[in-house]
């Protein structure tokens, strides 16, 4: 096994992630005294925004946070992402690459589904083949695309031999892909789902509520709660009211404004996870005016990041350095922070013959603070002499439209490994290449990274790629918003973790004091 892999395995075995480092960096109080001994029992009710009557328990169809929270209560993935986005083994006990990094042997843990049957290699292959079905519309299909599932085999009941289409040094990330849950072989009906997760399914009403009970034989130790209920409240104000009124003990995804209003309220504890939500603007590098790197650099230099974090996030966030993944594994933190420099920006614009440039900034109300950030950024650009028109688009179709249309668009991203960010958004054939970054040399660099087994050599490639993006990429990353969860005063064990990572919504570790 390779050094970095064993490190991960050790960390995970000790129940640790990189959370302590982030904890120190965060200004909010953790959820109460940690000295209390965990207690068993009780029901936790958690409020999430939901998807109405169309919600499903099919774990391969997860889309919303509520879906993901329900899926991880009932099911497991082979791996999950730690707080720094490093893959942590879950149903996989260990993984071992072949010499060329194009095949990986995954050994499964001894775990059982809720009906008592063991989790086997056949279940893994069935689940992955279901997701990857070319006729299907499962979201994780794209993530599993590097695996040649026809050539992959079950060596024995607890060993899977994955054959890849090309070398993939970061293959464990694939095992942690969003929605890549392991279901029992043959399952296609999830009305009463059976998984291997910490809770067994009890009841589900789409768009309203979900309940699950502790699974005593859970491989990672039984959950502390007797029962978990996930209830749906779409409006943030309703989730807060339900928490304040004692109707729920956990309210997911609260705004910075709510957090500020309840800072001194002893009845609730706020758990803020730094760096969870990247916020920025995506410039199209394949068309005027942003096909000229100097114009992109001028935009970087005109941005007042502190002002944006202060006014849009009420200070609950950190400034960005035009790179994705602040605080994550492989992030290039040696690159100096970019500061606002209006004079330098104007010089670059003059050099590019774009001194009196006029641009159209696309935005939509698709996330909290989205349109506000666009307004403030537009004002900052105007201070540099640019003309800016804000084009507010339809929220339901915004992402699909700005993928190909417009010049510059408000952008955000949830947490994912930096390698996934590159492969999904920055390669010539990436499915969601919103900056239209097409560069053969860059593609080669990424392939080289994925073919490099040595960790030091690979980190050097990561640094090189990020330096290039920092110098002239299309993503202007101005900040990272905290991810804020509210809990009742007696809730313990809610970790600071970016959404959709292992410790996020990890209700098997939560307990009631």
């Amino acid at each position, binding site marked *: 096994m390779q050094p970095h892999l064993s490190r991960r395995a050790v960390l995970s075995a000790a129940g640790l992630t990189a959370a302590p480092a982030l904890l120190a960096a965060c200004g909010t109080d953790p959820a109460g005294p940690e000295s209390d001994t965990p207690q068993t029992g009780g029901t936790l009710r958690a*409020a999430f925004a939901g998807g*109405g009557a169309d919600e499903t328990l099919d774990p391969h169809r997860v889309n919303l946070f509520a879906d993901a929270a329900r899926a991880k209560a009932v099911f497991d993935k082979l791996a999950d992402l730690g707080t720094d986005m490093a893959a942590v083994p879950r149903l996989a006990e260990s993984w071992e690459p072949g010499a060329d990094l194009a095949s990986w042997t995954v050994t499964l843990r001894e775990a059982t589904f809720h009906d008592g049957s063991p989790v086997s290699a056949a279940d893994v292959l069935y689940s992955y083949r279901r997701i990857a079905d070319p006729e299907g519309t499962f979201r994780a299909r794209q993530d599993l695309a590097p695996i040649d599932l026809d050539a992959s085999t079950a060596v024995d009941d607890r060993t899977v031999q994955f054959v890849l289409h090309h070398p993939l040094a970061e293959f464990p990330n694939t095992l942690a892909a969003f929605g890549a849950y392991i279901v029992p072989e043959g399952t296609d009906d999830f009305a009463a789902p059976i998984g291997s997760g910490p809770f067994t399914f009890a009841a589900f009403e789409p*768009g309203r509520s979900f309940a699950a009970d502790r699974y005593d034989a859970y491989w990672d130790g039984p959950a502390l709660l007797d029962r978990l209920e996930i209830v749906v409240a779409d409006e943030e104000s*309703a989730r807060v009211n*339900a928490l304040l009124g004692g*109707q729920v003990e956990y309210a997911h995804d609260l705004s910075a404004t709510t957090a500020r209003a309840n800072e001194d309220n002893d009845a609730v504890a706020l758990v803020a996870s730094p760096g969870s939500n990247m916020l920025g603007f995506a410039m199209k590098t394949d068309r005027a005016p942003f096909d000229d790197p100097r114009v992109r650099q001028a935009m970087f230099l005109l941005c007042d990041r502190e002002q944006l974090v202060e006014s849009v996030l009420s200070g609950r966030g950190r400034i960005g350095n035009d790179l994705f993944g602040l605080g994550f594994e492989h992030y290039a933190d040696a690159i100096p922070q970019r500061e606002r420099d209006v004079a330098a920006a104007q010089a670059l614009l003059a050099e590019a013959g774009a001194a009196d440039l006029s641009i159209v900034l696309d935005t939509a109300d698709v996330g909290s603070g989205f349109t506000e950030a666009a307004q403030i950024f537009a004002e900052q650009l105007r201070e540099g002499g640019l003309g800016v028109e804000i084009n507010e688009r339809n929220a339901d179709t915004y992402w699909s439209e700005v993928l190909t249309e417009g010049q510059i668009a408000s952008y955000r991203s949830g947490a994912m490994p930096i390698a996934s960010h590159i492969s999904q958004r920055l390669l010539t054939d990436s*499915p969601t290449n919103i900056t239209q970054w097409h560069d053969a040399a860059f593609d080669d660099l990424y392939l080289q990274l994925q073919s490099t087994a040595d960790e030091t050599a690979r980190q050097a490639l990561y640094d090189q790629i990020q330096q290039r993006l920092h110098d002239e990429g299309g993503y202007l990353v101005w900040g990272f918003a905290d991810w804020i969860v509210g809990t009742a005063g007696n809730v313990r064990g809610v970790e600071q973790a970016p959404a959709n990572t292992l410790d996020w919504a990890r209700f098997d570790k939560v307990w009631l004091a």
Partner: protein
Amino acid sequence: MLAYAARRAGLGAVQVLAVAVLAFALVELLPGDAAVALAGDQPDPEAIERIRTAMHLDEPALQRLADWIAGLLTGDLGASLTSGRPVADILANALEPTLVLAGLTLVLLLPLAIGLGVAAARHQGRWPDRLITTATVGLYSVPEFALAVLLVSAFAIGLAWLPPTAVGVPSLLAEPAVLVLPLLVLLARPICSIARLVRAGMIEALDSEYVAHVRRAGVPERRVVLAHALPNALSPATAQIARTADWLLGGVIVVESVFVIPGLGTALVDAVNARDLPVVQGIAVVFGVTTVLVNLAADLVAFRLAPRLEIAR
């Protein structure tokens, strides 16, 4: 009257179909379709295309509309594009909370509004009238969302007397406490508008020739008010009561979202956001049917109350 009702019902069916077709056209006019909405912030064009094919969205719009109407004629409302659940199921689930709220609101609304209107009219110009008039004008000017937020922060969060939302409640009737605040919000404005109409109608009726006549004939005042003046006074208010019933049966989205009540309003907003056409059309049919029925009932009631009036066609 039966023939009249039948004719109105027939006309209503045509209206309902027209509403559904219009809803289809309007959603088609919105940018993007269900595949785009489902893809959200992962707008991988290939995936969108696959979803589109799986949902049969690649078929021409007219073909899909024709299929849907053909289904409707056989009583089949179709299935949700997003989840594949039968639209009838989704509607039944969303109708229940809406019917409970609308029914209870109407049951409380009618005696309260009529009582207040009559009381004000009988004391016209004196302090009960002035109190009721001032209160109704004042309350009427408070929008639902403001009243909802105010009531929640005062009675649910501040005083902790009542639950702030209906989150996670399996059925509204199982936990009646969650109904109190939504009912207050729903009652506030209709009470004002209907009480004022009843008051005006009552003042006019009490002033009329026929009331003067029954009074001269020595009929007791109580009977004069309730049996002679009130039916006439109510008929101008029936149209407003019908409008209120229609509004309530449509699922009042503001109240539903503040109090987390998964009724028809929420279902419609979800369906439009997801561009889930079969569900939007199913809800349009429900809205059309309730509007037609409520108005028909109102006209029949108005006719019963004051038979000398010609029924408006």
